[in-house]
């Protein structure tokens, strides 16, 4: 299998980006939902939040490279006989997910940076990941409303992903089990993809 995308299938780089980011996002959604209501009197909360931030910043970094890779690497086409409306839904979902894998961690980083608590992220206990200076250096009174706004944004975007991921997953399963085409298989490593040479 090739590293870059080919007309019938995704290459190993795109596949790795896809599944690593997918796994990290699922872990982070679960963590976020779990610790949201956990009181700070619980000592585990601090560690969970630090872990969530470390994962999120990893997603952000990977996603930036992933989008760059996507720009220089044309993706395999959708089946030519696909319903035009479903094509729009499929591609629209893809673009929104690309947006979200950048916007969710970025809004989280902005949320952390504007927190009056002012603590930098301890990235997997390896090093201190800095806060965004243009937010962290603001006076406390200006930080609080920004923190609240980024908090709302971060939660809204995360819920958007929680809604969009099943749409994306449903589409993949629809292709695999109902249309019985290679759409899902071409995002899986070590599968043989035969059809789908058609241009979009």
């Amino acid at each position, binding site marked *: 299998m090739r590293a870059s995308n080919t007309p019938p299938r995704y290459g190993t780089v795109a596949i790795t980006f896809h599944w690593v980011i997918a796994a990290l996002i699922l872990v982070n959604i679960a963590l976020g939902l779990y610790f949201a209501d956990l009181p*700070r009197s619980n000592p585990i909360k601090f560690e969970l939040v630090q872990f969530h931030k470390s994962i999120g910043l990893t997603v952000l970094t990977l996603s930036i490279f992933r989008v760059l890779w996507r720009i220089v690497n044309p993706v395999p086409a959708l089946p030519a006989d696909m319903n035009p409306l479903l094509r729009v839904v499929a591609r629209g979902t893809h673009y929104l997910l690309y947006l979200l894998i950048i916007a969710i961690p970025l809004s989280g980083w902005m949320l952390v940076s504007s927190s009056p608590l002012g603590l930098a992220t*301890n990235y997997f206990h390896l090093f201190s990941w800095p806060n965004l200076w243009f937010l962290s250096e603001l006076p406390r009174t200006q930080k609080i409303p920004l923190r609240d706004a980024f908090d709302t944004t971060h939660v809204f975007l995360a819920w958007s992903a929680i809604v969009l991921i099943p749409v994306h997953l449903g589409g993949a399963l629809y292709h695999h089990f109902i249309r019985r085409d290679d759409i899902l298989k071409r995002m899986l490593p070590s599968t043989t993809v035969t059809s789908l040479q058609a241009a979009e």
Partner: protein
Amino acid sequence: MTIKSPIAPLVIVLLLTVPASAAHWKVDYSKSKIGFSVNWSGQPFSGTFKSWRADINFDPADLAHSRAEVSIDTGSETSGDAETDEGIKGAQGFQASEFPTALFQTTGFIHKGGNDYLANGALSVKGISKSIALPFALTLSGATAHVVGKAQILRTDFRVGTGDWAKPDPVAREVAVHIDIVATRSGP
């Protein structure tokens, strides 16, 4: 049996009660305030405690028999921002769920001259007790006393701020505890 007489416990209680001879003062909590200030992210930060009690027996002419005891509900800390307060009261801060009370008990008073006094005492926070000095100014007018004081302490002496929060950044280790108490003489 070590207690030989049935009135012995009563005698002990009386003996313990007698030394409080300095005047007792009733605190006007609506006019009084206990709080702290600290440098946080290079900016001044302050919080107050909404719930505390002070038991004060004080006579400028009889400092030897003067004493004060202040108990503060650490869970009543407020700065006006819920996230910050949760952190301060949380597991790495006051740990208020486990250590709900901070206690200051004087061990002696010194008159520094004019209105200025010094209260030496023990401050207990999170189960750790340290000697601290609380300089204060006392203004007496009739039966009313106004006390304004500030004690400099190190929060890390009391494990307030553990883990990443023990570092001097973003929260400085030097904390000033401020008291501003208005009280009226209520007894002998």
